[in-house]
């Protein structure tokens, strides 16, 4: 059981969602974050004020999966998120100690397995 954290470009978020859907990974959270990962800074001008924007908007996926779904989730994030330019983002996989589905009280493997046929 792992937590897969994927940080991707906002404009690729929809492609990641599609890829995750095709990989049958159906449970995840998504948040908008700002970060910096080595890409070139962007210069913006507002009247006399010139600024260097060091933080880029990113979208952070958090996907808790059972072991069998770790690689499909990673593949989906790579496939959907990749443009080939600096700034495509990162994927972190961390061990997950416990998971509980609030509705039923199921824990661990049951909690991160999608309800229904999958």
């Amino acid at each position, binding site marked *: 059981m792992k937590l897969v954290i994927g940080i991707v*470009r906002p*404009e*690729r978020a*929809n492609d990641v969602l599609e890829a995750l859907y095709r990989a049958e990974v159906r449970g995840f959270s998504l948040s908008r974050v*700002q970060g*910096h990962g080595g890409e070139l*800074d*962007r*210069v*913006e*001008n*507002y009247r*006399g*004020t*010139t*600024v*260097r*924007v*060091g*933080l880029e908007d990113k979208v952070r996926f958090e996907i808790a999966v059972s072991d069998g779904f770790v690689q499909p989730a990673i593949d989906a994030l790579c496939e959907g998120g990749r*443009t080939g*330019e600096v700034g495509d983002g990162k994927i972190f996989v961390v061990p997950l100690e416990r998971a509980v589905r609030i509705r039923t009280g199921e824990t661990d493997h049951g909690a991160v397995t999608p309800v229904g046929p999958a």
Partner: protein
Amino acid sequence: MSDLPLVFGQVAKVDTGDTAWMLAATALVLLMTPALGLFYAGLVRSKNTLNTFMMSIAAIAVAGFTWALVGYSLAFDGTGDLIGGFNNVALHDVTFVPRDGTTIPALVFMAFQATFCIITTALVSGAVVERMRFSAFLVFAALWSVLVYAVMAHWAFGGGWLLERGTLDFAGGVPVEMGSGFSALAAALVVGARKDYGRQALLPHNAVLVLLGAGLLWFGWFGFNGGSGFSTGNPGVLAFTNTLLCPACTLLAWFALDAIRGRHVTAIGAATAIIVGCVGITPAGGFVSPGWAMALGFLVALPSYYVIVWRPRTRVDETLDVLAAHGVAGFTGILFIGFFAQESWNGVSDGLVYGNAAQLGDQAVAALAAPVYAFVATYILLRVIGALMPLRVTEREEALGLDVTQHGEEAYATGEGAILITPEAGFEEEMAVAQP
């Protein structure tokens, strides 16, 4: 022309009341362009807000300039069939002397017509937002405002063949509405669809901007239609009042259509209805009775609504539906005159319903010629520009958004993570020296 008033002083006399109204009307119409910027900006994704707005602002810059330089002369100098002359190039002979047939100085007349050229150029941008390069749009706007708008304005207003044969177009169903609408279709086809079109939901990012823009457009439209009589006389008064009545009825019709189709009356639908209603009454404003204007308001909603529902199911990314809101509604308005114009109201001509079938023929000719010219001319123009420079931003720039890539700004900048760069080298040192 400039010698006439000395000889026939009583013929060409400036009327102060008319001039006062036309000065105000000109300002009202100019306001429509930033209003259109708001309307369009609300309809796109937030990362393209500024670029979309800037296309309208750019139209003021570019078309305002080209109009004074050559557009006005092509449109309003002389009575050639297809184009006017070159006597008024760079505003030569455009003075305080009234333009023939009006009681306002030619300068005011030129400025009023300039605002029409500007808003129409801005309208076309709705077809190509979110992917067209800003510099390519500037070139397109400059050439389009002369080669398409000024030519069509000559046909309908300036003494060209449509005006000569008796086509009635009060405030611009031909050059403004059909001109922009069918040009927009051509522009969308040449520039091509946005890369995410048809794959992702591309939603309006701010419906409040859309409603505010539509409201301000309606406000400005009182100058647009009400000023197109060039006086405070009956035609202008009739058009002014019809500009209130017709869009109100379009709103009602749109509410009903929305409710039937989606079980909700939508805000963006309402904003669209305001535009469609104003467009419908634009050609007809000074020619039909208030009662028929209200009927037109209900009627004009139907074809435009249908096209707005149908168009997104096609591969044609005519992004902000300029064709439906302007081209189709302008077409409806032009034809409506042919049926319901009333000489007892307009003092010019009756339509088919009042016994003059020929008027419908004259209207039908305009309803065919205007779309064909606008579409073909714009198609060729953009193909030529496209051969000389890229029309589109790169896929990567499109993904990042045109605000950042074209203008180096964001519409909703937070300043988080932004590091101040001192404006001039040495500034920092001076500050340091000043400290004890």
